[in-house]
């Protein structure tokens, strides 16, 4: 596995696809494939040595998650984007600084290529820690 990663700032937010597929079912394949992605610029993909659709691992201080990469032609290096959902939340912190709002945007992250690694399912994510459900 490639050890060199790319540093970026992670922004999470709404996408049209995520909103539309949530109505088909939050456990549907369509929904999961719409949220288990990370959008990034072409330079970042080139440095990581990956193509659109390849798996990418995102690491923050809170943990890591593997999702599919997606090319955003208009993105600049240094800022990557994930749709809101169970995958993004795996690596986001719950500190609210006294206002109730966790850090959903502007989270430092390092990206690594993740060949031969599959994107986690909802069941995988729910069993992350001991005990499961």
């Amino acid at each position, binding site marked *: 596995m490639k050890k060199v990663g790319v540093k970026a700032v992670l922004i999470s937010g*709404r996408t049209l696809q995520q909103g539309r597929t949530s109505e088909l079912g*939050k456990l549907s394949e369509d929904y999961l494939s719409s949220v288990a992605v990370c959008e990034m610029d072409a330079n970042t993909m080139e440095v990581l040595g990956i193509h659109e659709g390849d798996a990418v691992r995102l690491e923050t201080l809170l*943990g890591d998650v593997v999702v599919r990469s997606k090319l955003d032609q208009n993105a600049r290096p240094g800022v990557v984007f994930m749709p809101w959902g169970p995958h993004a939340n795996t690596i986001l912190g719950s500190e609210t600084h006294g206002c109730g709002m*966790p850090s959903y*945007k502007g989270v430092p992250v390092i990206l690594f290529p993740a060949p031969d690694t599959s994107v986690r399912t909802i069941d995988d994510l729910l069993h992350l820690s001991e005990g499961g459900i």
Partner: protein
Amino acid sequence: MICCIYPREGFSISSKKTVKNVPCVFCGCLCDDIALEVENNRIVKNINGCSLSKSKFLNHLEDRLLGPAVRINGILVEVSLEKAVAHAAEALTSARRPLIYGLSSTENDTHQEAYYLAELLGGVVDNTSSVCHGTSMIGSQESGDPLGSLAEVRHRADLVVYWGSNPQFAHPRHISRYIRQPGEYMQNPKKDRKIWVFDVRSTATSRIADEFFQIEPGTDLEVISVIRALVRGHEMDIDRVGGLAIEDLAKISEAMKSVRYGVFFYGLGLTQSKGQHRNVDAAIRLIQDLNSFTKWVMIPMRGHFNVAGANETSTWQTGYPFAVDYSRGYPRYQPGEYSAVDLIRRRETDVLLNVAADPVAHFPRDALEHLKRIPIINLDPKRNVTSLIAEVNIPTAIAGIECDGAAVRMDGLPLYLRKIVEPPEGIIPDRDVLKLIIARLRMVTKR
């Protein structure tokens, strides 16, 4: 228990109708010009709706929770509604720190029952705004609420600013219905009404805007503060802030002062970024400053169709918009203390009653770790991630499709929601399930 469901018995296959002027129950725009064609108790066509609206109405029967279920020995088992309600009431009465959460994708009468239940239990009631525009509430409590209406914007605005908001994805008809439409004092909006976008990344909205100002992540407060200083005539001793040249910001501030009517729409790019309520606070003060020169208003881009309603009803009934604690018998308010994510990550909450939300899908990891260890009573029409780990699932009717009610648009306008089709057999609205839980609770506790 779970699947796509089909029309109820008793509905003839030839039963067809068209219902006009239906408010859409997806986002905070609450577009009330939707026409729906219904065949055999199923919505088959959505006219005027955006792709989100179409997805919501046309898939109303997909992926539903069909019957109440209780987890026994780790497995969800179908039970009667009475049994599920009894189980829920028992879990709530035995809790020391129950939390009632959600409320943004349901109607106002449900909120009323939720506040009453929180008071009876001595629990906490919070809505999903604590993870979206809760910081807007805090900002407006500090600095005021220069709110405008969408109708005013359509008729008067000549400059529209979207700050940290991507309506083309989150509110797809916002621009086509209110911004690109001509109004009483705006005959040619495509030419005379300008759209500016401030964001940290290029978005579908920034690409159709007249101007796009890309700022560095986490610098909203600095950029807004500099624009305020320039509006008030101060000179800056720096060249750039947040990636923008002071020279450009000076032009921006002059343009903002010289419009006839400006509107500042702001989204979670402002409320969730570093600075949070301070960002909103600064934006409100900028709007107040601009009102010394011309007319400006600001409107939050609310996400769920009735999250604004949850703030309104909570304020009417408890005095506070979210994060309300009844443990002392009277309402107390403290975001950061009684807000859902804080209570859960501190492991205080010992039972969660979730109404029309999906916290397991949308809360950060360590909050989720605690949610996996406590009983969750989940009221929702559809399967969601929370339903997978809930101890009790009670399916409910979809507000604005299968039951009526009221909801509040992003600009504060209340609208009446329509009942279009019958809910599946035996499924009742959220408000009625809460009433049953309250009745059971009162019977058990003799309160």
